[in-house]
């Protein structure tokens, strides 16, 4: 009897640029081993060639290997073809084939600069286990940053807990939370554990699931706003990381910030690994190996 029980499970993905041949080009890669997801990005002469995005396992070196192998799948590339690899994220020092580790703050700013263009000034990375607010200049260099990794409020993990509690796939949480006639009061607890108890109470009172999700998404947006207020929001404003895919949080945050959030067709979860791969290219160009 196989029932769907893993509601937190988001969709893993990989992509190869069909219009690019890597042969004869300088191959650099970036691997972002996060707390929840791992990504590998491969660049050919600085152009995006392929990427993979998958769940992080319990073993960081193993997750890094799996991510890079998936990104190289059916491309003919092997580890020996990688000229320079930069590791980033929580497990950045545990990427066995990397030459250097760079913080995810620097990498996300650089990656967002590539994805959203040079007009980005504020990058909010909502990752699996932390939340980072970053200001950067037109080259993607960090000018101000703030990170909160001591509390799960406003993170992907918090959203996973709610998906699980309500038995709704994490991919549908955002859209469902927007299907409410009137916006409910946000969940009052900041802490994810207490917010979960509060939500259980609301369900018992007879609240429909979408209303509970609306209350949680709005609490999360509000929580992130208080973090953003410390460094301020300058336009253009972009979000990276998994929560950027959750419309329920993004649309509510857009209202709180009072500024449009930039849109992209790229997978927002690859920003860190992409930034790492761009740093790898820059380091090769600088002749620092």
């Amino acid at each position, binding site marked *: 009897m196989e029932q769907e029980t893993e509601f937190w499970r988001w969709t893993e993905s990989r992509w190869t640029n069909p219009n690019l041949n890597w042969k004869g080009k300088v191959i650099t890669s970036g691997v972002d081993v996060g707390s929840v997801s791992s990504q590998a990005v491969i660049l050919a002469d600085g152009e995006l060639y392929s990427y993979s995005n998958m769940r992080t396992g319990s073993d960081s070196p193993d997750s890094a290997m799996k991510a890079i192998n998936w990104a190289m799948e059916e491309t003919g590339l092997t580890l020996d073809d990688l000229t320079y690899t930069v590791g980033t994220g929580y497990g950045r020092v545990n990427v066995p084939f990397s030459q*250097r580790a*760079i*913080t995810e*703050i*620097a990498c996300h700013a650089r990656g967002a600069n590539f994805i959203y263009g040079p007009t980005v000034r504020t990058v909010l990375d909502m990752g699996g286990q932390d939340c980072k607010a970053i200001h950067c200049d037109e080259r993607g*260099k*960090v*000018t*101000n*940053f*703030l*990170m*909160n*990794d*001591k*509390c799960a409020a406003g993170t992907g993990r918090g959203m996973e807990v709610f998906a699980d509690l309500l038995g709704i796939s994490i991919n549908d949480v955002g859209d469902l939370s927007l299907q409410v006639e009137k916006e409910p009061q946000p969940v009052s607890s*900041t*802490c994810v554990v207490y917010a979960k108890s509060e939500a259980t109470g609301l369900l018992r009172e007879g609240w429909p699931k979408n209303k509970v999700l609306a209350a949680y998404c709005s609490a999360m947006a509000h929580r992130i706003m*208080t*973090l953003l207020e*410390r*460094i301020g929001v300058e336009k253009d404003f972009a979000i990276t990381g998994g929560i950027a895919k959750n419309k329920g949080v993004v649309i509510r945050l857009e209202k709180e910030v009072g500024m449009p959030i930039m849109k992209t067709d790229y997978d927002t979860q690859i920003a860190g690994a992409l930034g790492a791969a761009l*740093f790898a290219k*820059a*380091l090769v160009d*600088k002749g620092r190996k």
Partner: protein
Amino acid sequence: MIANYGYKDGSGDYFIAIDTDKCNGCKDCVVACPYHVLGVGPDENDPLSDEEVAFVTELERKKIKYTCAPCKPMKDRPPLPCMAACKQDAISHSW
């Protein structure tokens, strides 16, 4: 770059901000801090730069509310040793 080290939790905001453009890497703050909260080394958030700057050590980042508490009495707070030591005026505390 303004580097905000620290965290926000249910009880408040605890951040030490270091202005790396002002910081010259002199290590006066490292010597002044009685609890080894600060360090000086390559700027980990600006990997293409060669300059050394001050930062809050990895070990202390999630507990500065407690580590810094002895320097912050409720009444008659003296100037903080780290801030007083910094001639570049590059360090500030949020609480």
